[in-house]
């Protein structure tokens, strides 16, 4: 270690190639990957799922499992080659010099060991610290990651902590031995946005405090911009562009990076005037990669016989700070030209009211206590929900976990009946009609698109059969042939080849499955469609395509779309009106412009500020909420948001803790459920400012 010079890179990966070996073939996962991390630097690794970014991280840890093998290149850590290192030496580096933080905090903590023991283990192994000392250190680090009551926490078991707290423990564990390099693999993906913001801040702060270098892996460009100094964009096993964050974001020199930025909804995008541009085609499977440029088949600038002739090497961009791109044509492309095929669409007119909810309440009673005994408790999943939705309109319902948005969908669909209040659906009262008692027309007109593409289709039924079943149930057509014909038309509608009718769901990609889900929902000519996070599980480039498809069908059929999401960027992009929910309450409702500009409900403000935006021109005010979302079983008294609200001191004294706030109707029908006076609300400043271009 003495022969390592701190001015040299802490981690240097050169021409790394990794393959997985299965029974049938060798599957190359990463090819010719190079990157350098300097001391104190944070390197971001971005790309869509399957691009090999996590494989790179695991290769640095030499944790590729039985089937994975490094087939070429080197990984040098502090001047020592990790690829040839012996197991014993490797073990000394793991945990003490390189530490890793993972996606699922709950799964990465041992359920049967106390937090303290899991933390103390690290210094006990690596520096032979005594048990008492190690526990003392653990307590101190727990305090460092800003967890309340460290003494209680080190004696707790993982399941006794919330998701956010668990992730802080994982971070604490990584920091126990003050490592030189920290690898973070999607550390916040499993967390809510407002919790994520806190974790991101903590990581940044601790990185600076301990001078740790970081390798930060994420699919979220905004998050990478927040955390990292440098970025490396990966596509299909290769790094396609690398450089410092501002240069890559503002002066991208690879078509994939450009396409990626064009497909994510940044502030300013609009579904009608400036629609997103999705990347055509699909991500190539690892064993079916095209010759030459992997991105070639999906690239607008593709030239036959040139781009697909031979493997392409990384080409430095002169003048920039270690900026490089894996594109042959980067010097020929006009990077400032506006996208060519952007088509501008008419804004659809909204029609009559088709859905009206009035004072809807949904309470569940659950028994508390682990063994079934104990008192029954009432969970208020939805509290006084009132709104209306018109024909052809998109109403977004925004909120984090536990806000009651899924319960709301279930009640509307008739899977649950409301506790009180009314739901008018096309002049029909359905609040207490469970789905079995609704007539076929009502059922077929209200349909749902589900979140998880891997779950939305029955894995053991062919795609065509599933759509035909929906047609049968909705009493469409008189014969099997008629229904089959309609099914093929529906596949056309969602832009899938007709041959897909006979495929099984496992042969489809996530985006394709989601399209089938949409086709199935529209099988009976649905008039109201509830889309429950329909794109959140998809990769960004596919998100845009699926969103657009949904919008197109909506425009054509004049469907009312209830778009449930936690992602404010996409909500801003596609919705006409927005409803923000928190712990079963609607805290704010209005048109998209009203909700995204002040005055805000304090929760909306925090939510807006927490969403990372991948645009260097956007200035964002940082508001980090304390703590986690309270449990819906045990909500705080008074205003549900009062435990985390930063405006509480400005509200009339004591009201927040005791009374549920009234709904204030501001101009333009903008509703805010808050105790703050109108004057205070009027003083709020916008969270997001777009710097002048």
């Amino acid at each position, binding site marked *: 270690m003495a022969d390592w010079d701190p001015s040299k890179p802490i981690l240097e990966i050169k021409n790394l190639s990794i393959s997985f070996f299965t029974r049938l073939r060798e599957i190359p996962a990463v090819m010719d990957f190079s990157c350098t991390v300097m001391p104190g630097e944070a390197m971001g690794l971005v790309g869509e799922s399957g691009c090999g970014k996590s494989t790179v991280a695991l290769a640095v840890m030499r944790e590729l499992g039985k089937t994975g093998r490094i087939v070429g290149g080197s990984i040098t850590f502090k001047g020592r080659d990790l690829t040839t290192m012996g197991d014993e030496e490797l073990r000394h580096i793991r945990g003490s010099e390189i530490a890793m933080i993972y996606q699922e905090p709950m799964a990465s903590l041992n359920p049967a060991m106390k937090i303290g023991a899991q933390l103390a283990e690290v210094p006990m192994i690596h520096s032979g610290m005594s048990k008492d000392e190690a526990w003392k250190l653990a307590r101190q680090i727990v305090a460092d990651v800003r967890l309340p009551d460290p003494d209680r926490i080190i004696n707790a078991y993982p399941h006794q902590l919330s998701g956010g707290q668990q992730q802080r423990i994982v971070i604490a564990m990584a920091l126990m031995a003050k490592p030189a390099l920290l690898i973070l693999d999607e550390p916040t993906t499993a967390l809510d946005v407002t919790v994520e913001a806190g974790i991101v801040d903590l990581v940044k702060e601790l990185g600076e405090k301990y001078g740790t270098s970081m390798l930060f892996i994420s699919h979220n460009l905004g998050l990478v911009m927040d955390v990292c100094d440098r970025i490396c964009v990966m596509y299909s096993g290769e790094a396609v562009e690398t450089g410092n964050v501002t240069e890559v974001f503002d002066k991208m020199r690879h078509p994939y990076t450009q396409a990626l930025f064009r497909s994510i909804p940044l502030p300013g995008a609009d579904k009608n005037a400036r629609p997103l541009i999705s990347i055509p085609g699909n991500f190539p499977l690892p064993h079916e990669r095209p010759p030459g440029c992997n991105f070639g088949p999906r690239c607008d600038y593709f030239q036959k016989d040139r781009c697909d002739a031979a493997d392409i090497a990384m080409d430095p961009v002169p003048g920039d700070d270690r900026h490089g791109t894996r594109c042959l044509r980067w010097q020929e492309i006009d990077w400032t030209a506006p996208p060519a095929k952007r088509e501008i669409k008419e804004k659809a007119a909204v029609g009559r009211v088709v859905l009206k909810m009035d004072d809807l309440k949904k309470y569940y009673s659950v028994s508390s206590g682990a063994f079934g005994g104990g008192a029954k408790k009432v969970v208020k999943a939805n509290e006084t929900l009132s709104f209306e939705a018109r024909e052809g309109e998109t109403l977004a319902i925004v909120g984090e976990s536990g806000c009651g948005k899924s319960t709301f969908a279930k009640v509307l*669909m008739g899977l649950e009946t409301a506790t009180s209040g009314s739901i008018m659906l096309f002049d029909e009262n359905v609040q207490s009609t469970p789905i079995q008692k609704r007539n076929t027309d009502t*059922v077929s007109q209200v349909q*749902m698109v589900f979140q998880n593409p891997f779950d939305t289709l029955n*894995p053991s039924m062919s795609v065509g059969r599933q759509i035909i079943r*929906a047609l049968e149930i909705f009493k469409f057509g008189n014969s099997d042939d008629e229904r089959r014909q309609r099914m093929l038309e529906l596949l056309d509608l969602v832009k899938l080849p007709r041959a897909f009718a006979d495929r099984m769901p496992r042969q489809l990609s996530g985006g394709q499955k989601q399209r089938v889900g949409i086709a*199935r929902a529209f099988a009976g000519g649905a008039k109201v469609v509830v889309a429950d996070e329909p794109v959140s599980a998809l990769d960004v480039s596919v998100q845009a395509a699926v969103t657009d498809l949904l919008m197109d069908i909506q425009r054509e059929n004049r469907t009312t779309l209830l778009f449930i999401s936690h992602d404010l960027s996409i909500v801003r992009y596609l919705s006409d009106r927005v409803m923000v929910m928190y712990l079963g309450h609607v805290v704010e409702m209005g048109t998209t412009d009203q909700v995204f500009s002040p005055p805000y409900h304090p929760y909306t403000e925090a939510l807006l500020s927490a969403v990372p935006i991948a645009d260097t021109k956007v200035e964002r005010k940082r508001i980090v909420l304390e703590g986690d979302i309270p449990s819906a079983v045990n909500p705080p008294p008074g205003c549900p948001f009062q435990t985390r609200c930063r405006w509480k001191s400005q509200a009339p004294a004591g009201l927040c803790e005791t009374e549920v706030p009234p709904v204030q109707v501001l101009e333009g029908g903008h509703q805010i459920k808050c105790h703050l006076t109108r004057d205070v609300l009027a003083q709020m400043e916008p969270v997001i400012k777009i710097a002048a271009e």
Partner: protein
Amino acid sequence: MEDLSYSAILGRMIFQFWPVWLALVLTYAVSITFKRRLGLYGKLFDSPVGMIGFGIVMFWVFTALLADYIVTFDPYAVFSGMKNKPLGTALAGATEGQYSHFLLGGDALARDVFSRMVMGARSVLAIAPAATAFAFMVGITLGLPAGYFGGRLDTGLSFLANLVLAFPVILLFYLLVTPEIVEHKILFFGAFLTTEEQLACKAAHEAGTAGLSCFGLSIPTMMAALLFIFPVIFVVVLLNARFFTDPKKRNLYVGLVVVFGLWAYSGLAFNADPSGELLTSLAQTFPSAAEFLGVETPIRDIWAMEPNLLNVFVSVVFVNAPTVFRIVRGIVMDLKSRDYVAAGQTRGEGSWYIMLWEILPNARGPLIVDFCLRIGYTTILLGTLGFFGLGVAPDSPDWGSTIDEGRKTLTLFPHAALAPALALMSLVLGLNLLADGLREESLRD
């Protein structure tokens, strides 16, 4: 004639199984050729463990099917002078065309051990898979709603299942598989009548003067009536859920199943299949036609089960069903939170459609694996029954009974018990390996 050496015995046994080898080679050749097109079954041929297991199982299946061509002697026949004779003993005074040796020796009643072992495969494989299939029908039909609806239904059914599971199997067998239990009829009108009244009813039955108040069924018949109706219910519900949108098709399918199902049900559970009598009277009306077709009167019922067999069968189903119930219930509880189930619900599908067509097909992996394991377990149970002399018939060649007979002279003449013991072990081992292979392959994708 000379007694055979061990290598000659082995050679002759291998030769004797020639139809089985032929069938096995054919099966493997066809399966391996088309393995990519055969789904999970085809994938089995990628796993050495699965292939070995499948081979052993199919060996016994073919042996059971082709037993008539393999046996060297009538398995029930007694040959004087062959009592407890060791392996390869020559048969004194073998007639022309008859095989000349007892390959695996003779048992305590001077019967051919080899032929009995081969024939035993037939009696074991006739019961074990069928009983397991019935147990699965019962377990699935009850486990699906218990897992799907939860609540009181689940609590009640789970309690019943645990009740059966808490019964030590051996005790249950001793209580259920006794001759007395077949004699006794539980009276419909007052199962808790006093002993005096029950004895009076019995006397009345014997005198042929029993009235309606003495009408009753024996416990095995009653259990059969309860357990055997499940397959019919299962298939009817399955088809109805799928085709109720098209009443014409539905009526046809369901009608066929009901007619056929109830016919089989009446025969198996109540021994009331009318086909035998009908055919017999038909044959007697047209004797010339009957003669032409070569049928002999009286014709046996198509669906019928001997009381002893019924008793064993019902007990084995009864013991297995609760475990299947628990497995199905667990899988359903896991799968019912999937989005495709919610999608079915939101388009207004009935609960049974969702259970049978959305959930059940996706539970098939673990169920198929368990099915294989459970056939093995059932084989062991049948062996246990035989071992305690509770088997199908006293002189039946089934492996359990043969082990029971052989154990009395075990230390002196172990071959009589050893042959069926090894046969049973290899069959169960094959099933276990097959299940392991299937599990491995179904987890792979």
